[in-house]
């Protein structure tokens, strides 16, 4: 049995400890925001936060999550009450097909929690691991920049 804490809720699952976190989130917990893209840690569609750091859910085994805290896009808000980052992505219409967006939002969220006022170069460098095949990067960066200016994402104190 494995225990997994996601968005503050503790779950007990019966999975092979090698199972990628992404599969547990999508198949067992039905948190379908994070997407399976490449399965190789090269596209970022599966990005979630593990102890507040962005990680590739497809390459993070359940065995690595024991005793640690996972956050997914479902933890930031929902369609009725989106979180600041989600609201800004909607306002800037940063999604085209939307497949990469949950990963983009989570990586951006991690940046602003660590560095509430990043400059453009820092935003670009931080977002580099996440790819968007539709090419909405300029809107994604605009959405992140606006949240940074509004200071709506509160920095998290270092553990």
């Amino acid at each position, binding site marked *: 049995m494995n225990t997994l804490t996601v968005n503050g809720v503790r779950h007990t699952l019966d999975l092979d*400890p*090698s*199972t*990628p976190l992404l599969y547990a989130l999508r198949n067992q917990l039905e948190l379908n925001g994070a997407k399976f893209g490449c*399965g*190789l*840690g*090269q596209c970022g569609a599966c990005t979630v936060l*593990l*102890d507040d*750091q*962005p*990680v*590739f859910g*497809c*390459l*993070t*085994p*359940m*065995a*690595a999550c024991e005793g640690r805290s996972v956050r997914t896009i479902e933890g930031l808000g929902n369609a009725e009450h989106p979180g600041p980052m989600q609201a800004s992505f909607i306002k800037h219409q940063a999604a085209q097909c939307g497949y990469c967006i949950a990963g983009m939002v989570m990586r951006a969220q991690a940046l602003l929690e660590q560095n509430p006022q990043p400059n453009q*170069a820092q935003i670009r*460098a931080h977002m580099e*691991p996440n790819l968007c095949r539709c090419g909405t990067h300029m809107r994604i960066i605009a959405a992140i920049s606006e949240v940074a200016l509004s200071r709506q994402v509160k920095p998290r104190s270092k553990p």
Partner: protein
Amino acid sequence: MKRTTWIWAGGALAAGCVAAAAWMLQPSIAAVAPPSPAEFEPAAIARGARVVAQGDCMVCHTAKGGEPYAGGLALRTPFGTIYTTNITPDAATGIGGWSLAAFTRALRHGVARDGHLLYPAFPYIHYTRMSTADIGDAYAYLMTRAPVAARAPDNELIFPLGFRPLLAGWNLLYLRPGPESDDAAQSVEWNRGRYLVDGAGHCASCHSTLDPIGGERSPAFSGGNIDGWDAPALTALLHAPKPWTREQLALYLRHGWSPDHGAAAGPMSPVAHSLSQAPAEDAEAMATYLMSLQAPAAPAATPAPPAGPQTAQVMQGQTLFNGACASCHGAAAPMMAAGGRPPLSLSGAVAGASPDNLIQTMLNGIPWTHPQPSTFMPAFAASLNDAQIASIAAYLRADAGRRPAWTGLEKRVADLRKENQP
């Protein structure tokens, strides 16, 4: 570093300082107006591009995300942090005011235009071997780059090393100025290779152990450590799981990758990228020379021992490997089936005496650093903790490596993680 080492270092420096008093003050060479690009022959500039690639000048003289050659990269040494200088032809902050004579003196003797002594982090003890023609061509190339106004931050060195005249003593010990004459008993290619390896390439700067005051120990190429990465001995290339050949080494030096050994990572990645900008014959000559330095191969390999004992750490490592690594590195992974990717059993990082390169590759991955196609691996520093990285290293050492277990792995992961902090 141990206290006695520092005392020793201080004593040696003081002694050297007295001995070298006469050397300590070097004259300034008058500033010139920055030469116009039209003053240089296009052919000299093109040859200079090759020399500058051989010398990896851009690797150190470019800050992360900064303008090429504008300096500002922090070099962390046991003696403190040195910031590389701006070598663009900007008159105020770069080398725009440097004549060819001043540039040549810097490369041959480690003296800046205004007469101050340069720190040996700048490998002038190797660049001094470069030919006058190559130095002139490198000058032509650098002086025709776009000038960038950028002043490097002040160095942060331990007392009393901020006092540069002390370097005269160091130079007495380690600087043998001027080119070496060819060895007539060796081939033209061997001599060319030695010239590139010992001169512009300055391979020994990383691949030799350093003594307490930062001098390269003799014999050269016995292996060193740089930025928390192992620079393997270049004299034991026949001891790899598959012994290196000249052809494989030449390929690796220009492509950062060998199908029988693995990918260049850490500080070697930019070296290979730089050499890829020079013609193949340069890497081939370097490989010819380096292969002539090899200690005899180990006696015929005994049959691989069975995998090591299944300790709890090794079993945990296997579980994590299957979830985190096997989608690329597993025997059945599409990436392995595509061919040309060495199994981890051939990797120098798994077979090495120290676990550092395996740990560092897991922590940092192999990032994209330039637009050309290159090896890539994602970083695992955020997803795996120290014990988890350590257990994967233990598993790979036992299973793929079939080598004696490393000890103290978890602490080593913690130490390297700390060392990687900016």
